[in-house]
């Protein structure tokens, strides 16, 4: 048992050190695995902002993850082809510069999140779950039926996109790029949660009427949070595309949305570092079960089921001694 702060610190140190060791041992596999963990953790933190803190159950966050992936893939695709991207009368050049790609990803996923959020937030409860799912399905089917960028087969990137002075093809370098993004995400979300926006978001989850009565528009608070959440998840998708050097409609599928959601719950909602721990256990579990049995999904299902039925608070609350728990139990 330890304090949450200590555990958070340990998680970050652990994630920082393991790829360093695996580099020394020349074990690329572990490094790639940890890159995946960190990327999914970023996506999870993005989702958790609205799921855990805002009470908005988005069952379509793969749409942002996938959009980020496709923005990355498409820009690189056009860069490699020397064909400009044509949108109506405008023409854009493709690029393989990650700094630009990230900016484009953030812009596009914010715009998409504004659009989806604007319509979805008119509904609540199960209708919200389903309409976010519907928007994700739209893009999923669109990506399958639009053949320019590979359709169902997906789009391969011949090389990872680049950053000046760094070799992104080196797994360890790429891991630390993802790691830096994880830290940025944590700092950003922590800042938001302590800002007036975050506080009114948490308040809107509890009671919208009261928030309104102090002169804050809860819809607007939720929409802004939804946009930030979408942008973070989009960025994770962009990193994911570069990690695999491949994007396909699979990352837009509703199973992907479910996966992001599961790792948030697995680690523990309402906690900033929960999704990181969730992503870690999810990927490790997948690897471990995949190693011992072909039907690992069967057992994964069992574990998730038990988790939901009997251990709602997530892994984090097993590991830490929470002052809130003490207060409520005494």
């Amino acid at each position, binding site marked *: 048992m330890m304090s949450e702060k200590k555990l958070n610190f340990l998680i970050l140190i652990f994630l920082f050190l393991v790829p360093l060791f695996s580099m020394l041992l020349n074990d690329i596999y572990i490094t790639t695995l940890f890159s995946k963990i960190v990327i999914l953790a970023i996506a999870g933190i993005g989702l958790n902002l609205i799921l855990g803190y805002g009470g908005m159950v988005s*069952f379509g966050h793969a749409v942002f993850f996938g959009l980020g992936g496709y923005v990355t893939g498409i820009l690189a695709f056009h860069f490699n082809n020397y064909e400009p991207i044509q949108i109506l009368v405008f023409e854009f050049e493709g690029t393989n510069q990650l700094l630009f790609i990230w900016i484009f990803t953030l812009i596009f996923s914010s715009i998409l999140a504004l659009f989806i959020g604007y319509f979805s937030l008119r509904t609540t409860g199960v*209708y919200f779950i389903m309409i976010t799912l519907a928007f994700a*399905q739209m893009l999923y089917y669109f990506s399958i039926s*639009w053949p320019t960028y590979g359709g169902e087969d997906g789009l391969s990137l011949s090389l990872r996109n680049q950053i000046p002075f760094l070799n992104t093809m080196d797994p360890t370098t790429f891991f630390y790029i993802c790691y830096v993004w994880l830290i940025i995400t944590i700092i950003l979300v922590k800042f938001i949660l302590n800002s007036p926006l975050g506080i009114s978001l948490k308040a809107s989850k509890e009671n919208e009427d009261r928030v309104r009565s102090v002169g804050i528009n809860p819809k607007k608070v939720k929409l802004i949070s939804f946009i930030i959440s979408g942008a973070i998840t989009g960025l994770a998708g962009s990193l994911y595309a570069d990690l695999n050097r491949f994007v396909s409609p699979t990352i837009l599928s509703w199973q992907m949305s*479910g996966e992001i959601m*599961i790792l948030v719950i697995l680690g523990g909602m309402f906690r900033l570092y929960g999704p990181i721990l969730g992503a870690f256990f999810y990927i490790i579990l997948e690897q471990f079960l995949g190693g011992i049995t072909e039907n690992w999904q069967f057992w*994964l*299902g069992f574990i*998730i089921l038990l988790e939901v039925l009997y251990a709602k608070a997530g892994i984090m609350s097993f590991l830490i001694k929470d002052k809130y728990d003490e207060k409520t139990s005494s």
Partner: protein
Amino acid sequence: MEFQLLIEQLLNGLQFGTMLFLMSAGLTLVFGVMGLINLAHGSFYMIGAFGAALLAEITGSFFIGLISSFIVAMFAGVITEILVIRKLYKKDHLDQVLATFALILIFSEGIRWIFGAYPLYLNIPSELNASVSLPLEIIYSKYRLLIIAIGILIAFFLYILTSKTLLGIRIKAGQNDREMISVLGVNIKTLYTIVFALGAALAGLSGALIGAIQSVEVGMGEPVLILAFVVIIIGGIGSIKGAFVGALLVGVTDTLGRFLLPELFKLFFDNADANLIGSSIASMSIYILMAIVLIFKPSGLFGERSA
């Protein structure tokens, strides 16, 4: 010729719609009565199809296969309800989504474990595997007409069941005030099990009916499940009438969209582009339909209350 083709597509849409209705009926009842989001509903569709394929293989009779799809899925429904679903009624939607998502993994992998990764085939008996001539020189598949007939028959049966029988009245009462009806001496636990099993059985039957046209394979239920959710959201959660209207609307929109949209875009673009844009938009058409319905009627066409 164009006209016959259009009618044929319309019938295809109806057939698709009635199948969706069989899926959605259970989903909407379970949702309306127990307040449960059941993602694993598609698994009963799959279980029904596998049950039918297995028993049709053993007995050599397609109809025994069909009947057993209903029974097998019903039993699977009863067992699932008692072991897992029962614990979820009082949990929030998020937990329900996750737990039933886990059930999908368990069912899909379980079936893959037992039957292997290859699809099974369920053959339509030769007397149904033919075409019939309808008025106006329309020729249409006998089997698909049978599906439409079964769907409409079951819709009628469910309408009678929910509006004219004691069970239906209890279901409706449970929807409105579950505490009150348990105080009045109705065993609410059994009622919930019956409703859930009925929904699972209908899903199983539709899985077997469609499995005979397509193939019987792991993961066949999930695409249909998502469509069924679209249907009940459009129709309004908890309403059988809404599920029926929503299912036909989705079935016809999807089928006709795929047929008509490329033609429509041919008026504006050249052929290749029109096909491309038309089919891309058609693949999204029902989700667009759902988004439009929700934007104007946030609780669906026949929704009585917001969930």
